[in-house]
């Protein structure tokens, strides 16, 4: 056991820090740090800057921009990226559809889709959830029926994050309605959002933003070669994707960034006895969060080091569960620091953003596998508690 970074890793850390703080424009990073609704242009600019330096998709195969990094290096990369408030590569591209196409797509699909996916020339969104399915993904009812060399898609997806900016959607569709189990008979289909019959309706959330959408498919015709892998095997690819998604899911760097912000905010609020940062109860809560976030970061590192290539460790559920809790705790803390100043949402300073951001991130324990689902994965998959 060794606390310090090896010389090689320390140099790697320095290289990442230098890159993120000098090669990604400062104004872009400042806008990202301020929070609020993400600007798609900034996200594209950031991912392209990263991709140019081969830093957008380091976990992909080498021929499509991947790097042969250790898990520790991947963590350092993410940590430094978030510490510098660099908008990360779009998860739908880098962590979801990209790895699926790389692992299961045809050679033609790889060549066609992977380079623009890495460069965010294609903006992907995810078409998994449906209105009456929720966490029960496999109950999906959107159908694709073969008609010549096309699939004809009908149905509805929901909770499609940033779908309003998307060029393409990767969707789970039912291709065999008579399959014996509901997990069977599902396929993984790539659909261009500009196809006739695709409609996007933004859903307003309680913070006023519109980051999620409903997507409707009305006799949308999709070329047959846009089906990834084998027909009716989509559930396997979805499970692979969700496993990958969770690996990157504990946003430790971003939680730490927010916590550092919280300290700065608290130091600027005067109380009757000094500043809020000197208030014993508030300071103890910050100290507690710092210790808890440290525990999470250490666990990310320890678990990542143990996870086998390609097979995400089931312990990634720990990270999703605890990561979302801590993220929510830190955002709640910031609302508390804002105090009465947070009652006015009309300003775009940190006080005005505090409450909407807190409310927005209640999603963190719901989306991408709710915390109840994560606990189920742990109790059943890790502890062997199968009722």
């Amino acid at each position: 056991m060794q606390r310090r970074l090896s010389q090689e890793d320390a140099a790697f850390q320095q290289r990442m820090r230098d890159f993120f703080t000098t090669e990604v424009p400062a104004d872009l990073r400042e806008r990202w740090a301020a929070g609020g609704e993400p600007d798609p242009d900034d996200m594209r600019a950031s991912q392209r800057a990263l991709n140019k330096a081969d830093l957008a998709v380091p976990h992909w195969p080498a021929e499509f921009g991947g790097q042969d990094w250790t898990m520790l290096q991947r963590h350092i990369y993410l940590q430094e990226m978030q510490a510098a408030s660099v908008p990360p590569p779009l998860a739908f591209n880098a962590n979801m559809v990209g790895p699926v196409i790389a692992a299961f797509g045809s050679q033609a699909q790889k060549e066609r889709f992977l380079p623009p996916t890495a460069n965010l020339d294609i903006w992907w969104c995810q078409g998994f959830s449906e209105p009456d399915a929720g966490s029960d993904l496999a109950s999906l009812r959107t159908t694709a029926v073969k008609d010549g060399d096309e699939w004809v898609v009908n149905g509805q997806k929901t909770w499609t994050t940033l779908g309003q900016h998307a060029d393409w959607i990767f969707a789970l569709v039912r291709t065999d309605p008579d399959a014996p189990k509901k997990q069977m008979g599902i396929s993984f289909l790539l659909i261009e959002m500009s196809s006739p019959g695709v409609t996007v309706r933004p859903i307003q959330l309680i913070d006023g933003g519109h980051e999620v959408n409903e997507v409707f498919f009305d006799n949308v015709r999709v070329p047959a070669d846009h089906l990834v892998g084998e027909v009716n095997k989509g559930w396997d690819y979805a499970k692979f994707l969700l496993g990958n998604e969770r690996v990157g899911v504990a946003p430790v760097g971003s939680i730490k960034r927010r916590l550092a912000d919280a300290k700065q905010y608290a130091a600027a609020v005067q109380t009757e006895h000094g500043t809020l940062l000197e208030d014993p109860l508030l300071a103890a809560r910050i100290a507690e969060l710092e210790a808890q976030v440290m525990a999470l970061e250490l666990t990310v590192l320890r678990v990542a080091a143990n996870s086998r290539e390609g097979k995400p460790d089931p312990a990634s559920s720990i990270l999703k569960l605890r990561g979302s809790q801590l993220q929510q705790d830190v955002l709640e803390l910031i609302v508390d620091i804002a105090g009465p100043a947070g009652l006015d949402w009309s300003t775009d300073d940190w006080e005005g953003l505090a409450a909407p951001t807190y409310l927005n991130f209640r999603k963190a324990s719901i989306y991408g596998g709710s915390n109840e689902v994560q606990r189920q994965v742990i109790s059943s998959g890790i502890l062997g508690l199968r009722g």
Partner: protein
Amino acid sequence: MDFSIDTEQKALRDAARELASRRAPQHGEGDVPVGPAPHDADTWSALAEVGALGLPFAEDVGGFGASAVEVSLVATELGKAGVRTAYADALIAGSLLATAGSDLLESVTDGSALVVPAMAEPDRAWSITTSSVTAEGADDSWKLTGEKSPVPYADAASHVVVPASVEGGLAIFLVEGPTAAGGGVTFDGTAATLLIGPDNGAAALSQAINLGIVTLCAEALGAMEGASTMTVEYLKTRKQFGVPLMSFQTLTQRAADMYVSLELARSTALFAAMAISDDPSDSTTASRAKVVVGQSGRHIGQESIQLHGGIGMTAEYAVGHLVTRLTAIERTFGDTRQHLASLASTLSDHEQVDILS
């Protein structure tokens, strides 16, 4: 000790319930307003019509001679229906006007004037004992300097009531026709009327805030009840994995914990209303109620969304709006931490909390 309500109180509650259901925001498809609500003149008139605005003030100063208990009944109905108003704010202003014996109170209670307090200050934590706004002058001629922000409803207010520092302590002033900008009110040698001098300013403000806290606690109680009811209903009707959500024991056990939080908050909010009616200066009980309701509000608010899942996050569904309001109430008139700190400093005053004396 008696928690039951009499016939007159029941009638008032029913009137408030009817008013609230009539004025409740509609959340259909498409965008709706989120976050803090602007002043709504129609709702305000309706409140004035049922007599809600003068309830806790004595008849000889222009009030209706009821009490904080009646205020609570009204506020709970508003909270349950998600009707957000300046009720707690106006009552604080009203309490200060009543203490000062100001004629303006009659216009407050009949709804013709909207008077709100200007209390929060930029970059300063909530405080009711100090102010960075200063007042200079004497007799009928006072001038205020400094900034209060945010001042909810300032843009719609006919007057603001302003705690400000004077020689000798904190005094309370009235400013007519405030110029609201950027969510706050800036005073730059602004003419003001002295309502209460420094001898009694802090004490009067504390009493007024107690009334405001009790009102907010009652509104929060309504919001919690609304959110809890919706959540239970959702668990009963919504199916997942082929069975109703209520088949999942982890969800029903958590719904039980929400219910416990709600009932504890209910007892406490009602008791605080009784206590403040009995002794308006009972800040200790007000702080305890703010703590209990604050913690219940966080718990019930967060669990309501979590147990709903994604739909609870959407603006077209009411539960998120109730949680938004609970989030705001917790940071209004001092949050849980601040009231705990204030209670912590007076632990030696009593051996036990005695509610039966």
